[in-house]
């Protein structure tokens, strides 16, 4: 090449590959009429690779909530936790986010942003959830 000079190793490899006089110019696939190839999928590629990644995962769906409303979501009708449809520690994280019957949790926006800071995995760490005093 006369106007470009390869500096690093990768550039040297590219130059060896395409830099010889008369070497082909790499032109991507062009479809009929000059537009991109019809499917937009390069030949040989898996069409699944072209999926929009952002659409792959769905919205957060809580797996359940306590069915017994009285005397409160924390306990079942007998006053224990055995009758809840989800373990109590799960309620802490699911019910306050998306449930129509939101669990009471501290104000995590302003007052207690680190309330769950020590509770990375609820199954293991729920005992570490801080006590909050307003």
């Amino acid at each position: 090449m006369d106007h470009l000079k390869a500096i690093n190793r990768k550039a040297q490899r590219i130059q060896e590959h395409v830099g010889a006089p008369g070497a082909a110019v790499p032109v991507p696939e062009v479809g009929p009429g000059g537009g991109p190839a019809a499917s937009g999928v390069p030949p040989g590629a898996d069409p699944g690779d072209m999926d929009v990644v952002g659409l792959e995962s769905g919205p957060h769906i809580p797996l359940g909530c306590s069915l017994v409303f009285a005397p409160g979501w924390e306990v079942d009708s007998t006053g224990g936790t055995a009758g809840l449809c989800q373990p109590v520690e799960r309620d802490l994280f699911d019910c306050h986010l998306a449930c129509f019957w939101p669990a009471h949790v501290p104000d995590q926006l302003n007052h207690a942003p680190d309330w769950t800071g020590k509770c990375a995995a609820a199954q293991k760490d729920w005992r570490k959830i801080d006590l909050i005093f307003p």
Partner: protein
Amino acid sequence: MSTGAVNDAAPAPAATPAAGVIAAATEPVFLAQREFHPFEAGGETFLYLVPSAAVFYLDEASHSVLQALDRGPASEDDIVAALGPRFGESAVRLSLGELMRVQAIGLTTAAPETFPRVLPQANFPLTTMVLNVTNKCNLACTYCYEYGEDKIVDTTCDPAPTYMSEETARQSVDFMFEQSGELPVAHLTFFGGETLLNFKVLKKTAAYARERAKELGKDVDFSLTTNGTLLKEEVIEWLAENRVGVTVSIDGPKETQDKFRVFKNGMGSYDYALPKIKMLLERHRTRPIGARVTLTRQTLDVPRIFNHLRNELGFWEVGFAPVTTADGRGYAIEDTGFDHMLGQFEELAQEFLEFALEDRHHGFSNVKETLEEIHKGVSKAFPCGAGLGLMGVATDGEVALCHRFAGSDDHSIGSVHNGLDRKRQFEFLGRHHVANKTDCSTCWARPLCAGGCYHEAHVRYGDTGKANLHYCDWIRSWTDTCLKVYGEIAVHNPGYLEQFD
């Protein structure tokens, strides 16, 4: 290349057209810039091509051709008409052809570039195994990712043993050699907690690894990371005799070290560790000894820390990393702090450059590592080798992506007792390929960054697969600085770069 699975193939040539640029076309076709990052160094102009990671020097004609496309697509004839009088028609056409060949420019009708989502082969060899010989530490550094506010594993409730047993360590060594495939050398890194709390097992494991290596006709290389507080004469002798590479976690002089690196009673560790570290530097001469600094908002004095560790204490290399933290922690480096840190890094990079131009060793390892990657033209499919060429083993023998995830059930990819869970490993790799990170798809720095550390992303966003968007600007500025240092060296002292071949 450490990460192994890199897209390092040169672009494949297509069949047509050949001569000139697009001579055979009947209708005017338009040319446009493709992805690259131009930079100036040593009075010359260079091009860092994305995603190939090639660095080319541009002469005036090719630079002008690229500039002519700054405002948008143009036809070949328009460019020739504009620049022909200055450089001559044939020079302009030749420049256009060369820029097409290296894919700095392309036809506007070309399909948008897609990223090849190439996953490594199933038997990709393990290069480095990090063995967490204990999850206990004698310090209580406030920012610690293992014990601090952002920890992943609660070691107090976790059933994993505090110390790795000799048996598990031996099985880990067998696992390492088995997974290293055809590689002639296996790298074994001892890690913690504080690694030296389990010196007994560490010593026996190293002896066993040597023995196994001999039987297998391989070589094994050892390194460890320590906070330095438990170094003593017999330990140092052993480290030197066994050629163990040592990295000391230390945050600089007393005022910065004692801010966060404290004992459980709150006492700073500097005065306690210093004589031991000095003894290490004095007696362990078989391998260069490095320092690893964690930068926080309160200890952001890079030149002072570097000077103390490199020049006053005599570490061979000093590497810096901003603290890994969730947003809003008191020690987190935030927006203006990143700018401040970058400014300090740039100053030190300039000093590195002055040394490099005189073929002298400087010791700022952040620059050196990046220069090596630029020189090789690394274009990463994954930000690092975690879960691929590098794995971490927890005290109970669970194999994690890397040492930072050791002990986390959610990030386990097998165990040294039952082998690798290939399905989980490949699910992880499939999900974390840079082609999946839409945030990275338009960033010119992605060949080197690929979205950044999984652990950092996990702590910051709760998702290892997310790009670390909080330091994008910083990574781009830093990469640009390193490219300029690289360009300067390429112009004024190209021989220096041969060490990276």
